[in-house]
């Protein structure tokens, strides 16, 4: 037998599937929506038939959250989620609707909305507007759009932070993402606070585009690919010319750029992938290697329930965030069971998915209520919206908690920052 046969491979390992069905057990959608055939059927089983005849493509594949929990569960390393997304890319005949385009174009819509943020926020919150959006755009009326900030993070950074960054001994580039830029600059400010405290200057990339996760989910692959190329070019410049690794505060953006770019979009991220990390992981590794130290405020007290976002789980990185949180002496940490919150980016905003979305999240919501935390912490912004809307508990990124918990001056001293 030829030795190549021993390591037989197929696209996304689809033929390495042993049909054990564990993926279907772990699929949050299959558990609540019988219209979805489940990852095994939608992925490797369906793929064999799609190779025979594209007519076997099933539009129900759009019900996939792309949470990748199936891939985490798979003992045979079949990239089931990739298979499903790729089948959608290849076979779907549905063009994105206006609503999908608006939900997907976080960059464009965000830029326009921040200009008139108070009006946007006011009107998005109005009941009649919500009813119209529900009826005309099929955006579910229960949803509240994340508020748009009056000042973009980038604008704040240029005005208030940029000038001081060069004085540090070490440097990173920060991929802030759309959410920090348009909706929640505070997280970006917290990141700058923490990184500066440990002696790292924080810089923006030459050009940053939305990572494209929402474009992929809404079938706008060409645009996602284009944006991906722009991001990779900026990051290569940062790594190669300025010796600055890239950190982020969004697990989904990170996952998209590290894994979806090469696997789904065909965007080459060689030499970038290993230098692109979530800030919590970057920090944990520095602390673990003894490169930096943290000093905490003695009066800090907080009970936190940590929720592992799906893409965080896919990367296997939750441990960096939780271990970082555990370093805070006054912090009491409850690790929630690994369950999807149900929002999956723009998925839960769509009227047709609202019920599925809330049914998926119900287990997590009950766990959060039972844990009675002061705050929930997670590394994903869309989980934040979903959990805040569904439980009323405020959600903080671990970096924001860290920014509150550290004694900045003491930390600077520990790390030799003048």
């Amino acid at each position: 037998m030829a030795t190549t046969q021993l390591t037989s491979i197929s696209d996304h390992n689809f033929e390495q599937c042993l049909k054990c069905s564990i993926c279907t057990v772990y699929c949050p959608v299959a558990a609540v929506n019988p219209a979805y055939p489940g990852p095994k059927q939608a992925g490797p089983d369906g793929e064999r038939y799609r190779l025979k005849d594209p007519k076997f493509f099933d539009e129900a594949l759009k019900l996939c959250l792309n949470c990748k929990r199936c891939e985490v569960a798979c003992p045979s390393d079949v990239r089931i989620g990739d298979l499903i997304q790729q089948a959608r890319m290849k076979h779907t005949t549905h063009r994105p609707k206006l609503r999908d385009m608006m939900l997907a174009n976080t960059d464009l819509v965000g830029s326009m909305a921040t200009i008139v943020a108070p009006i946007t926020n006011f009107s998005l919150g109005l009941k009649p507007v919500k009813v119209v959006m529900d009826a005309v755009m099929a955006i579910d009326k229960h949803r509240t759009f994340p508020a748009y900030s009056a000042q973009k993070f980038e604008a704040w950074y240029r005005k208030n932070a940029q000038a001081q960054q060069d004085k540090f001994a070490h440097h990173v580039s920060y991929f802030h993402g759309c959410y920090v830029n348009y909706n929640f600059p505070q997280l970006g400010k917290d990141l700058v606070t923490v990184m500066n405290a440990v002696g790292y200057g924080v810089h923006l990339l030459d050009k940053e585009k939305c990572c494209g996760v929402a474009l992929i989910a809404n079938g706008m692959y060409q645009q996602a690919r284009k944006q991906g190329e722009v991001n990779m070019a900026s990051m290569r410049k940062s790594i190669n010319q300025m010796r600055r690794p890239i950190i982020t505060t969004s697990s989904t953006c990170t996952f998209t750029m590290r894994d979806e770019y090469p696997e789904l979009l065909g965007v080459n991220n060689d030499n970038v992938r290993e230098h692109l990390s979530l800030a919590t992981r970057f920090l944990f590794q520095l602390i673990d290697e003894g490169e930096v130290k943290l000093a905490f405020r003695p009066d800090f007290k907080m009970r936190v329930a940590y929720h592992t976002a799906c893409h965080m789980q896919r990367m296997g990185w939750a441990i960096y965030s939780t271990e970082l949180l555990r370093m805070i002496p006054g912090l009491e940490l409850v690790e929630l069971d690994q369950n999807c919150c149900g929002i999956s980016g723009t998925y839960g905003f769509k009227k047709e998915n609202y019920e599925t979305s809330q049914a998926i999240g119900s287990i997590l919501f009950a766990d959060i209520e039972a844990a009675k935390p002061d705050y929930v912490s997670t590394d994903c912004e869309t989980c934040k919206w979903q959990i805040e809307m569904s439980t009323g508990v405020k959600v903080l990124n671990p970096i924001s908690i860290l920014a509150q918990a550290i004694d900045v001056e003491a930390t600077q001293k520990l790390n030799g920052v003048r």
Partner: protein
Amino acid sequence: MDNNKHYDVIVIGGGITGAGVARDCAMRGLSVLLLERFDYTNGATGRNHGLLHSGARYAVTDRESATECIEENMILRKIARHCVEETDGLFITLPEDDLDYQKTFVEACHASGIRADIIDPAEARAIEPSVNPDLIGAVRVPDAAVDPFRLTVANVMDACLHGAESLTYHEVTGLIVNQNRVDGVKVRDHRTGEEKEFRASVTINAAGIWGMLIAQMAGVTVNMFPARGALLIFGHRVNQMVINRCRKPANADILVPDDTVCVIGTTSDRIPIETVDDMRVTDDEVRLLLAEGEKLAPSLATTRILRAYAGVRPLVAADNDPSGRSISRGIVCLDHETRDGLAGFITITGGKMMTYRLMAQITTDMACAKLGNNRPCETADIPLPGSEKPKSGNAQRSFAFNAAEGRHGTMTSKISMESDADKALVCECEGVSVGEIKYVVENQHVHNLLNLRRRSRVGMGTCQGKLCACRAAALLGRFNNNIPKAQEDLAEFLDERWKGMKPVAWGSTLREAQLTATVYQGLCGLDKAITRKEGSK
């Protein structure tokens, strides 16, 4: 069944030839009994490539076969629409092959009436991306894929619709010969152990390679040369078109896309008649198939192999050549009355699956002449059940419906898919629903899981029965109201699946087999249940 009934015709052998003869005879108004010792397609019919030859393969060496092939090819596209996938085929020339042969080949194809278009290697790579990119020449011909299981069962069903009777698991143990005349057959019912006799005016021996033994029972000699061929099934379709080598026919030079899989084959070895029931595939055969297969489509080297199997071709020595050197792939229809002075007995052999309909026509003509029946043959014009022109309708169909339609054609309308219970999938790999299983059990002579597999593809997918075998066994057990038998059946079925996996048991296929063993032996205690039952006998 009335044992005293006298039939016009008894047909021995439930392969494609026997099924085709039974259909033709029944359509001409004869009373017909078809006998098969195990299940339909158990012999060479179920153990080949599933290739609807254009005839191109034989064009250079055997003009007559080539012409027969292309004619039957065109007929089967019409009458067996639901069994055929019109893929077209390529004959590729590789750097180590002689490109001059291409010219000879194309001329021979044209002389045989076969469309054969030389295309640019770049175009070949574009229309069939899996093809060896090093090819230096390509010819496009009207090859296609055909499902032998469906084709055979559709012939049997149509025979029965025309009044024929058909019995599986009835093995002919002897012929009833009276004064130089075959009056019928003695059979053993394998399911009950019962011995029976059936009588007919004409007995037709269509038992493939086993026809040699049937002829011996009648005291006549038919010289056959069993030629064994081994094949490999890959886990998914690598190619969308048939890929052949453009050279003199040799080992493992055809790759056929069959349904959800693709098949490379075959080897060719003469074997003694005593060993024709031994279908084990050897390591050497696997090695050779892989080595040659990679030359057609390099990705086969890294594609998971589901199983290996072998079949035996019934090659026949020409009657005027007792040495057996001049072997024909052509059709051999022997009237033993004129040949051997034994009346009421016909042997049909040689030929190919491709030409079964023509073989049936020739045989039926001979039987009809003996019986004084002069109805013309209509099998070339009337579609098989399932292959009638489909009613137009482009409603969004379910996965299981589409999968079933690929297997049953227009008969899919008879499959119940209304209730959730009927829509539920039994076999997830191949999309077989409970409704489809009910349909084949009611209409297609299903006694066990093996029969069910051949009628529906249950257990033919990637998991080779791991998920579906127990569900299907439970359904059969419920239909037959016999759960203990279903347990035995399940164990036998899983054993049979393992036999095919064993020669290629490495990598994912080995892991799959181990998981299957763990589920059935470890978790369900299947072997213990069977042992206990045997112990209590």
